[in-house]
């Protein structure tokens, strides 16, 4: 049991990282992680390794995050940054790309690298609050778009505007920090 608690404690920072990425609120993230660890301690199990334990904990965390989203749904609103029309920076008034999209080359080459995952994670973290939350709900919690609309009481049109902006921002961030060769992660 002492070992089990120690293992949980060791994984806590990772759980907190994803909780923060999802909720964009430090206090709610702490609550979700505490709830997760309490639930885990109440039914200790043995795992073949740290990786299996993590998979189990992340599974619990995902449920606790949805609980937190429900509990705080009234406060999950857009920020000023969310409302900035990034699309107007990327497209001209006739709807053409201001800068031609570049060839990103062989996808496997990028995807194989752990550094690329780190850059992607940093780019998700840089998304404005509501866009980050919606992106995570869709891509990490894997909620269906109609579930997201229901939980947050937003219209499908609004959801798509925000997801569109989130992906355009993510694309810009990856272009800047990976594909243009700057590769921030490699320096750190």
């Amino acid at each position, binding site marked *: 049991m002492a070992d089990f608690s120690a293992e949980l404690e060791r994984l806590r920072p990772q759980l907190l990282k994803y909780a923060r990425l999802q909720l964009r609120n430090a206090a709610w993230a702490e609550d979700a992680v505490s709830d997760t660890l309490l639930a885990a301690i109440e039914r200790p199990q043995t795992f073949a390794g740290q990786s299996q334990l*993590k998979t189990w904990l992340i599974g619990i965390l995902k449920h606790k995050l949805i609980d937190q989203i429900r509990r705080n749904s009234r406060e999950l609103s857009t920020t000023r940054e969310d409302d900035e029309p990034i699309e107007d920076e990327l497209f001209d008034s006739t*709807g*053409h790309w201001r800068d031609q999209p570049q060839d990103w080359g062989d996808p496997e080459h990028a995807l194989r690298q752990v550094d690329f995952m780190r850059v992607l994670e940093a780019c998700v973290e840089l998304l404005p609050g509501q866009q980050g939350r919606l992106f995570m709900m869709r891509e990490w919690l894997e909620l269906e778009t109609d579930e997201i609309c229901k939980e947050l009481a937003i219209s499908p049109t609004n959801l798509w505007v925000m997801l569109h902006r989130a*992906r355009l921002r993510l694309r810009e961030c990856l272009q800047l920090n990976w594909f243009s060769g700057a590769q921030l992660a490699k320096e750190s």
Partner: protein
Amino acid sequence: MSLLKRSCKEVSLLLMQAQELQLPWRERLALRLHMMACDACPRIVDQLALMRRATERWRSYSENE
């Protein structure tokens, strides 16, 4: 906006939606016509596909490693 003419800006949204839902036939046709005439947007298709695979991989990385 003419019946089947879409700008790159509109197409970038349609491409993202097409990854997740079945677009109405008119939008699918408009998308196809745009792609035949545009140099820039086919690259976005590749970029979006890469981003999709990357987030999938990141998700499983977050769960297992």
